[in-house]
């Protein structure tokens, strides 16, 4: 690591030791990765999308590989906010992790209830809330909010009123104009936006003449989506005043640098974790080495620099 490089970033009210976070849905609640490295080394960990009551998730097959990518239709299987607060948050605090809680709901009331429950965690235990209105794999609680401007603003405002924690809204790429959504949730009180969630896609098994996923369609992630994500981060970052967290196919330090140059204050590494559980730390170290080689003293200096 470039010892001279200052990797610290402030993003939407969250102070992070480095700008590379683990993305929600790709690190569960942290225990598996903690077997390999201290979670405190992550800029932040965005835990699995958490609902008011446990969600069962979708039947299998839930996973299908694509060219440089991955389709998933997990369906937000999670043990619910009671489990999060009783078991996972205390453990994550012990690990010294910077915790972002990704929340999901089927109705505005459910989102609000989960957000409100997070106040039960000890002060400082949860760093931020990431409002997930962009899962393409559930009938309710995903795109009915993330692909409807009014619904997106409504749920953001309601959750804003229910929590004092920094509030990120995770946006869907499955819309015509992602900038309009970023602006709408900014006006509704979001402290930042994270993007992109997965792109709706599908695979067919020609010999069986059937879709591969039991859910028929799934969310595409991985390096295949990076150009789409980068374009959306670029557009959103110049349209809103709140910080942007870049997500989408980031698998190297150079990928992270590109998103930051496009305007992201921090980035999330997701699908890359599946093949390389150390990917977030590798991305961090590669980013530091790149910054060092570029003669940049602090990671935050490159945020939006491609637009200067």
């Amino acid at each position: 690591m470039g010892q001279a490089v200052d990797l610290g970033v402030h993003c939407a009210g969250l102070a992070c030791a480095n700008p590379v976070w683990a993305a929600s849905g790709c690190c569960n609640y942290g225990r598996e990765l903690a077997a390999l490295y201290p979670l405190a080394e992550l800029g932040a960990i965005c835990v699995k999308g958490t609902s008011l009551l446990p969600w069962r998730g979708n039947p299998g097959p839930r996973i299908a590989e694509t060219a440089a990518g991955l389709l998933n239709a997990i369906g937000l299987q999670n043990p619910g906010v009671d489990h999060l607060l009783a078991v996972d948050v205390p453990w994550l605090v012990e690990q010294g992790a910077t915790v972002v809680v990704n929340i999901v709901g089927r109705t505005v009331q459910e989102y609000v209830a989960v957000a409100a429950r997070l106040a039960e965690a000890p002060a400082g235990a949860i760093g931020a809330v990431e409002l997930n209105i962009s899962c393409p794999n559930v009938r309710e609680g995903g795109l009915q909010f993330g692909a409807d401007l009014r619904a997106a603003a409504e749920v953001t405002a309601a959750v804003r009123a229910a929590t004092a924690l920094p509030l990120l809204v995770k946006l869907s790429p499955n819309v015509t104009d992602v900038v309009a959504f970023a602006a709408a949730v900014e006006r509704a009180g979001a402290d930042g936006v994270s993007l992109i969630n997965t792109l709706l896609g599908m695979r067919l098994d020609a010999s069986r003449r059937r879709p591969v996923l039991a859910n028929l369609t799934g969310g595409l992630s991985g390096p295949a989506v990076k150009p789409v994500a980068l374009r959306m981060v670029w557009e959103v970052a110049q349209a809103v005043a709140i910080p942007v967290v870049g997500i989408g196919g980031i698998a190297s330090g150079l990928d992270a640098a590109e998103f930051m140059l496009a305007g992201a204050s921090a980035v999330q590494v997701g699908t890359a974790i599946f093949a390389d559980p150390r990917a977030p730390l590798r991305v961090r170290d590669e980013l530091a080495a790149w910054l060092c080689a570029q003669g940049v003293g602090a990671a935050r200096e490159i945020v939006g620099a491609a637009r200067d």
Partner: protein
Amino acid sequence: MREGGRPLEPHADGRQRSAWLEEQAEVRAHERRGLDWFDLRLHAPQIAARALPGQFAQLQVRPVGPAGAGLDPLLRRPLSFCTLDPGRGEISVIYRVVGRGTALLAEAAPGQRLSLLGPLGSSFPDPRRAPARPLLLVGGGLGIPPLACAAAWALAAGRPTRALLGARTAGYLAGAAEVAAAGAAVTAVTEDGSAGRRGLVTAELAEVLTAEADVWACGPAPMLSAVQALCRQHGAGCWLCVERPMACGFGVCIGCAVARADGTGYLKACTDGPVLRGDEADLAG
């Protein structure tokens, strides 16, 4: 590479989980063995030292090199251990070329290094816990190879062990020689009669199964469902090594769902399994 140092709790029924790690394994031997299947022997001393039958490794299909793992194919390939030789620090896997990933893997040459994550998942139950109970190993097709180290483990524990192995044709009896080499009495059947008796391995099982036996099975889903039903009928012990599409293999993606028999949700094939108790999984769900 920092290893997965946290000891993982064994299951109450004796299935074991290991602390896992990433290891750059050297290809020691890599041979085409049948129609389209390959036998890959790797020097992976850290993984070999802690691996148990029924567990698996996630293999990067492209050798370690200056270009890195590459981004396509993106995912590792989960392969169950066929033989385990901790003394020589070696493990072997048998796989079939089914797509681009395994086709790339088939090009790996002796001396090259492959990145492995492992040992992952839950093993067959420790055979020393019931040393007198007869053990029936039931394997179908590419489900046969994992039974080779399972047979060796059971026989070392003094378990009376018999293997019933089936495949479509003789050319797909991959790993049957390894099961026999481990010392198990092998009955082979093929659907076309090209090796052993003609028929299904589950018909053989129905003839010999008793309540006193334990069954360890690995194979295609219809075979596992039939084994599960037979064990239930006879009151025999039943452990099924399942296969599901999975992305990570270590529990974070939640992709490899297997429905719980009690209807309360899903097990993960990667960490709860791949060896599941016959009474906990609803293979149709």
